[in-house]
């Protein structure tokens, strides 16, 4: 239950490699076995549903409803992985999701970093006030804005476009990011600012060429969080988009399994496509795992100021 000693006074470090092996005591064997058994159970709970998903994706449409259900498919319908995505118009949905998410991420991170920079490093009247206002707006549940914004977008003609999903990101739509950005910026010594100013750099240059590289973990983490938030967004596209060709993956996939007029959805097609749906975030995660853990760690260990 406790960590073994690492280097003294180390900064926040995510779980790293085990140190040199220590002599084992007898009771440790039981503890170790228990740990591994539990670990196995945990891994199973996390992974078995995914494996099962793949087997359903490989079954034929009617075999899915065989009772009692067989765990492994008898006929390997690999064609589901081609026909399923086609039936759900997967490539189109993927493209939509990618565009919406990419724009949201860029907008969200950019404006949050800008706001965090100003709040942390520039002195101006109202600095504290705006900070508290932004952080306070974290308390506002998204649902309060749902209906008024829906009417607003309708009246300016943004209904059934991607604009309601993208523009809020560009207007500092996520106060949590502003909070995070400010935290990171506060940790940078002012001497760097001073040095840059001596060199004659204006604010914009300081921001882009000095601050951004220094806070890379922050905006990478924010990008990942923004990516997840946008990729997973379901309610907003559900409300603002009704043309099926404009849907992102979240709404498109969910609508595929809703039954209508007594017709059962095709689960084998669906599971095959689901696997493809899961791949992009997985790839992003494995590529940037380090930053993610590190960044979330910052959330877990910063002091509140």
């Amino acid at each position, binding site marked *: *239950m*406790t*960590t073994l*000693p*690492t280097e003294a006074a180390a900064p926040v470090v995510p*779980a790293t490699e085990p140190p040199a092996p220590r002599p084992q005591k007898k009771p440790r064997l039981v503890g170790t076995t228990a740990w591994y058994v539990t*670990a196995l159970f*945990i*891994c199973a709970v*996390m992974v*078995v*549903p995914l494996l099962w*998903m793949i087997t359903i994706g490989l079954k034929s449409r009617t075999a899915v409803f065989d*009772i009692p*259900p067989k765990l492994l498919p008898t006929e390997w319908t690999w064609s589901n992985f081609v026909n399923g995505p086609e039936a759900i118009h997967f490539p189109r949905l993927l493209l939509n999701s990618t565009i919406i998410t990419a724009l949201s991420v860029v907008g969200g991170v950019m404006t*949050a970093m800008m706001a965090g920079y*100003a709040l942390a490093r*520039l002195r*101006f009247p109202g600095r504290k006030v*705006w900070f508290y*206002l932004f952080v306070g707006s974290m*308390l506002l549940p998204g*649902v*309060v*804005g*749902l*209906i008024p*914004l829906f*009417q607003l977008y*309708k009246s300016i003609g943004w209904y059934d476009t991607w604009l309601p999903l993208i523009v*809020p990101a*560009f*207007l*500092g739509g996520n106060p949590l990011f*502003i909070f995070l950005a400010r935290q990171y910026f506060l940790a940078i010594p002012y001497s760097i600012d001073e040095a840059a100013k*001596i060199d004659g750099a*204006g604010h*914009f*240059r300081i921001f882009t060429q000095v601050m951004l590289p220094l806070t890379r973990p922050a905006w990478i983490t924010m990008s990942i969080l923004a990516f997840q938030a946008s990729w*997973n967004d379901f*309610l907003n596209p559900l*409300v603002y988009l009704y043309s099926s060709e404009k849907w992102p993956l*979240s*709404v498109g996939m*969910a609508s595929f*399994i809703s039954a209508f007029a007594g017709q059962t959805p095709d689960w084998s097609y*669906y*599971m095959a496509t*689901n696997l493809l*749906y*899961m791949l992009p*975030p*997985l790839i992003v995660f494995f590529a940037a*795992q380090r930053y993610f*853990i590190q960044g*979330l*760690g*910052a959330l*877990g*260990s910063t002091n509140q100021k």
Partner: protein
Amino acid sequence: MSTVSRGGLRRTRRNRGGMSRNAGSDVKAAYLFIAPAIIGFTVFVVYPLIRSFYLSLTKYNGLTDPVFVGLSNFRRLFTVDPAFWPSLRATAYLVLLYVPLSLILGLALAMFCNQRFAGVRLVRTLAYLPVVLPAIATITLWKFIMNPQVGLLNTILERLHLPTSLWLQSPAMSMPSVVLVMLWGVGGTMIIFLAALQAVPNELYEAARVDGAGAWSVFVRITLPMISPIMLLQVILQTTAALQTFNQPKILTNGGPGFSTNVLMLSIYNNGFPNLGRIPQLGYASAQVWVLFILIIAVIALTAKFTSLWTYSDNTPD
């Protein structure tokens, strides 16, 4: 303000892009930097607050103009509507099941993964995996896993000769099933707690060991207090998120057998955006929104009030 650079032959750049070095320009620059956020704040925070409050006092179908009806929406909500109190109950049930379980499980998993065993990184990654996957993908997957006839859960339970359940279709088990699906993503909480655990200075543990403290003592007297700020943050974040849960009830049960999973957020959506040609009741839905809003504020205020009692904050710099 002098624009001569100190100590040198460097050329000063004045007014580059409208931003120079003096204090006045600081203000200009600052406001330019936070301008998007200010606009966002006005449009997405202030405007909705005012407008939704106004709408909650009207009868509005989205097509014709709103008609002012005063407090009759709230009256109908609290006295006549047969769906309102069940939806509050469902929401409360969800929060009371989900928040404590997710925190306990998250912390347990974090402590579990905070040990030096070979393969701990694999466990950590796998535990976090469901969080990485798209929410809709996992929710729909679990909907089929919980299918009473052909789903994975009942199949496994039957093979192990354990009792099966109707899961999402049973009025008693529907909410626990929804919470179960939500708990599959406990890896996110785990990561945050893991980072918090690793920020606890080891000297404390060593000192405790020297003093002969047992594992439980260490946990209660050192670990918990040291991570209490994070715990508080997590309680607040998780509770407010749980109060606004929408995706899981919508996709898994759409209100569930009876009203058992008809959480307030789903009720709002169904009233404001009904399907199949029913007329939307946007005013009524706005009234529900305000009830939810007040609820959230109350929860946050109550939790924050008690923070001083049980959190430990170390304000020494660095």
